[in-house]
């Protein structure tokens, strides 16, 4: 009985009796979830448009973080000397430009020669890409953990009794704006429409004259910029380091949850996993000695694989008979 009480009742009593703390847990989860969403979003974009499962998405975030730190150091940032905001903005724009250039290079060097090859070959080529970018980033910018300070204070304040963090809020707002801009881009613009057309039917897209090569460059650029935002957010919180590329591993359960082809799925899936693992950790963790956060996402993904393999928002497969 005690066990049942501890598992099924006590955590909810705790939540109800300390609602403010509960709200803080949820907000903390949402903030972590935004990160997962962003990385998963990059995966989804590339997967939809080219059917490639991009193993390098996490490394793209790392690479963008490294590039930004490198550019800022080049402009004179030191641990004591903070750059003025316009130079920081310039460095971010420069990093975005590097990500776009990278997209061109990837299309030219990796994708184009492999056109019409098996999916598995393209997947393996992205593993190669990931390894290359890791090494290249190391050579270029060094392999030590780097602090990334983009001038947004990491200060906490209270709002209605809830402790909030200014950096987290800015980060979440940035992610929200990014997602909104992408949604408009996909739904309302000519190129966005072409991207969706390619995702639906490559052949038909070709037949109406949509050039796949430029579409791939655009998709990889967008995915690179989404990775950059993730890399900056994560890097500014916990330093730019190799572990950044591992958030890609967290994106996998997000994708299973949300569906590999669904943009809203990636976003909602990320938030659910972020919040879910925080709640599980705080309220159920003590029962089994903690560390639920590390495997919760994978458990949830497994349950989904069993009961809803297309994910929450997986695109309906339209079949006519």
């Amino acid at each position, binding site marked *: 009985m005690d066990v049942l009480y501890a598992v099924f009742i006590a955590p909810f009593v705790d939540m109800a009796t300390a609602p403010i703390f509960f709200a803080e847990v949820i907000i903390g989860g949402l903030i972590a979830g935004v990160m997962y969403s962003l990385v998963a979003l990059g995966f989804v974009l590339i997967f939809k448009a080219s059917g490639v499962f991009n193993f390098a998405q996490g490394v793209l975030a790392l690479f963008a973080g490294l590039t930004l730190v490198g550019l800022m150091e080049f402009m004179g940032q030191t641990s004591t000397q903070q750059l003025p905001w316009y130079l920081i903005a310039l460095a971010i724009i420069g990093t975005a430009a590097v990500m776009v250039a990278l997209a061109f290079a990837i299309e030219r060097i990796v994708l184009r020669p492999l056109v019409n090859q098996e999916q598995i070959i393209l997947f393996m080529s992205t593993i190669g890409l990931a390894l290359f970018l890791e090494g290249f980033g190391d050579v270029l910018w060094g392999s030590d953990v780097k602090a990334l300070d983009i001038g947004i204070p990491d200060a906490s304040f209270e709002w209605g009794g809830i402790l909030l963090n200014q950096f987290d809020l800015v980060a979440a707002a940035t992610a929200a704006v990014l997602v909104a801009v992408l949604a408009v881009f996909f739904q309302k613009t000519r190129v966005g429409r072409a991207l969706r057309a390619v995702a639906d039917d490559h052949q038909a897209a070709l037949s*109406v004259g949509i050039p796949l090569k430029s579409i791939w460059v655009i998709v990889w650029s967008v995915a690179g910029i989404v990775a950059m935002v993730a890399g900056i957010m994560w890097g500014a919180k916990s330093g730019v380091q190799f572990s950044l590329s591992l958030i890609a591993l967290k994106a996998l359960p997000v994708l299973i949850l949300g569906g590999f082809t669904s943009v809203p799925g990636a976003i909602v899936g990320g938030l659910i996993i972020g919040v879910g693992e925080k709640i599980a950790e705080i309220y159920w963790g003590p029962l089994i000695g903690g560390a639920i956060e590390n495997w919760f996402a994978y458990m949830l993904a497994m349950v989904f694989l069993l009961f809803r393999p297309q994910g929450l928002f997986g695109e309906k497969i*339209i079949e006519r008979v």
Partner: protein
Amino acid sequence: MSENAQALLNVNNIEVIYDHVILVLKGVSLEVPEGGIVALLGANGAGKTTTLKAVSNLLGAERGDVTKGSIEYAGERVDKLSPNDLVRRGVIQVMEGRHCFEHLTVEENLLTGAYTRTDGRSGIASSLELVYTYFPRLKERRNSQAGYVSGGEQQMTAIGRALMSKPRMMLLDEPSMGLAPQLVEEIFEIVKALNDKEKVSILLAEQNTNMALRYARYGYILENGRVVMDGDAKTLSENEDVKEFYLGLSSAGRKSYRDVKHYKRRKRWLA
């Protein structure tokens, strides 16, 4: 080879190989005059689709290659151009099996057809209106997902989408496939109207020989990757062998045109 120098499309003795080994077209030649409707007839696997894809260069995406011969459009060699280049020049293919973008609405499907256009919003908007006057049913269904509209409406969407590119030449691959006879008639009437009023030249691949020969002015019959016969639509539809094997008007038990006419065709090749 070409007796008619001003043909809009000139396919010259092309050979097509898939995957570097599978030889599918073994020397196909044909012509489409400006403003014409030309039918490309033949049974399953004869090579109709392959011929159209060689022209639109959709072959590239299927590991297919034109290894011999040449393709000229409006006086220019086009066999090395990308589909995008060809659509810009006015050649567009309507693929077999419709291939609508299922998760896009009917109207979004139509708009993707205007991807290569550079003449601005108002030009595209008036093309959209034009498509809706030819296909009023699409206007009613404009906001439905293309995956959920009927087969006939999908075929209309596919043709309308191609029309949005302001083509000079349309390569139509089996528009009658899987449609009720009435609808086939409706679609062919529209194709004819497009040819008349919008001045779109048409190369039409069909298994429905009867229908195709009613609308086309000239026809080619493909068998096994070769043109085995060509002529005016009228001549073809009165030809005994065509009647027998493609129009199903005879009950004789022979299996293939090839079996009977081997000798005759040989003469034709040598001629």
